[in-house]
């Protein structure tokens, strides 16, 4: 398997994530799609680390995971608070602010 396959796979995953953000309503799911995008990037990084024969890629991947984890904490907190108020996690319900 050449590295291209991995890159393409990662790209596909990234796209799936991005599209997911666009099509899914539930905030949690949207957020998960974003996580998917991040992880596809991780895959890309690992692949490049391999191809370029450097370690940064892998290190960065670790960083990304940590950051992602932090993001989860903050994100879920926010989503929870609004869910409590509105009894709904649909991102389409939050559009008081517009135009």
């Amino acid at each position, binding site marked *: 398997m050449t590295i291209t396959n991995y*890159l393409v796979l990662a790209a596909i995953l*990234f796209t799936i*994530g*991005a599209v997911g*953000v666009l099509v899914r309503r539930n*905030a949690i799911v*949207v*957020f998960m799609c*974003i996580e998917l*995008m*991040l992880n*596809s*990037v991780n895959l*890309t*990084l690992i*692949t*490049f680390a391999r*191809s*370029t*024969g*450097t370690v*940064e*890629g892998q*290190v*960065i991947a670790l*960083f*990304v995971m940590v*950051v992602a984890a*932090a*993001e989860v904490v*903050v*994100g879920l*907190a*926010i*989503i929870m*608070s*609004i869910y*409590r*108020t*509105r009894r709904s996690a649909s*991102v389409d319900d*939050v*559009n*008081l*602010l*517009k135009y």
Partner: protein
Amino acid sequence: MGAIEAPDLSYAALAPLLFVFGAACTGVLVEAFVPRAVRHPVQVAIALVGTIGALVATLLLAGTEEITAAGALAVDGPALFLQGTIAVLGALSVLLFSERALDPARSAFVAAAAVPAGSVRDRELATSERVQTEIYPLATFAIGGMMLFTAANDLLIMFVALEVLSLPLYLLCGLARRRRLLSQEAAVKYFLLGAFASAFFLYGLALVYGATGSVRLSDVRVAVVTEGGSALMVLGLGLLVVGLMFKASVAPFHSWTPDVYQGAPTAVTAFMAAATKVAAFGAVLRLLYVAFGTADWTWRPLIYALAIVSMVVGAVLGLTQTDVKRMLAYSSIAHAGFLLTGVIGLGPDGTGYGLAATMFYLLAYGLTTLGAFGLLTLVRDGDGEATHLSQWAGLAQRSPLVAALMSFFLLALAGIPLTSGFTGKFAVFRAAIEVGAWPLVVTALVASAIAAFFYLRVIVLMYFSDPAPDGPTVGVPGLPTTIVLAVTAAATLVLGVLPGSVLDLAEAAAVFVG
């Protein structure tokens, strides 16, 4: 097995960062151990010490040019200048946060964010004197992230800094005491879109890494010179730019700006509008000038286009806004466009006036917009700030001073001479024309003429129309807000009338290392 040598850290050069992050961590500890009664003053004190200390440090460091932390951080002119700017804006924002005289409940921030909005508990908390103090460490972390952002000499650090500055902001946006639904909505939107955008940034990082085998800006430059811009790298650059432009709220990545600016607590909006822009543009400048400065053919057309789109969108959409906060949000989009005009002004091989001009503009705009938003917190009605335009009618008769101050800030934003706004515009336009981008400048000027209309509309309302009988009241600000307004107004005036010294400073600082 050779011994692992620890990376050299020149603590002196990192002093500003250390101050702020130190303050932030201390803040967290304070939350844990200091009794609630005294937390507020303590937290404010710590935050101020951190930011002001950072400011002092940057001033002392002026002139240093070194790469440290194993090349991950560059402490150079631009970094220090922008860090100083952020420190100033941060300190002022902290002061705005700490205002306790205006809101009857003595704080603009929700007492307990976890309590569902509108619930019984929420209602009783809303009127209670209990105040939120986590905001200070959060804000301090954000400030630290921003300062790190401008000094990041390495895409990874840039990413980390991006997150460090974003995450606290997401939270801060949701902490308004009044109109909590809007506030929470702002937080959700900002968070989801911010995370989305940072994913793009990250993917761009990955691609650049793949193309050059490194995320160090200097290495990237070398690679660009040797291999020229490969498709992979250019794609990476593009995605990096997208991530940064999102933070800088440049159209077409601006869509979150109006909503978030309107929903967030005004003090936080002020902080975001002023400081975040500085940080984001700091990163943009460093990325484009240091990493891709030798391959400007790749990004110049892109930035050119983005500048025009941003200016036009900001100016035109601002015309029909009826909410002052939202209007200022669009104005900030337009200003992002003007700033990009300065970014264009990078001359051949690193010369050119663009860097200095943009940095000056950032300082000037940051202070002015901070003042403008700060002023919004004074005009209030039954439930919090009165930000609808109609409520501002005839304000000049209610409170001449506020009206005059607001007019002054608006004229500065419109770029009328003798205000900092004009000096800044002049600087960036000059930079752009020097590299022959006069069509861009003409567009910018027309855009600012259009934008002038909605600034003017507020002035017309305040002065030339009659106040509504049940109009808002103008609160008497406490010391903190007063200081903020005084400082920002004075700065706006001084930078307009006698900008010489600051311009010198910017020009002296306008050299990147690495």
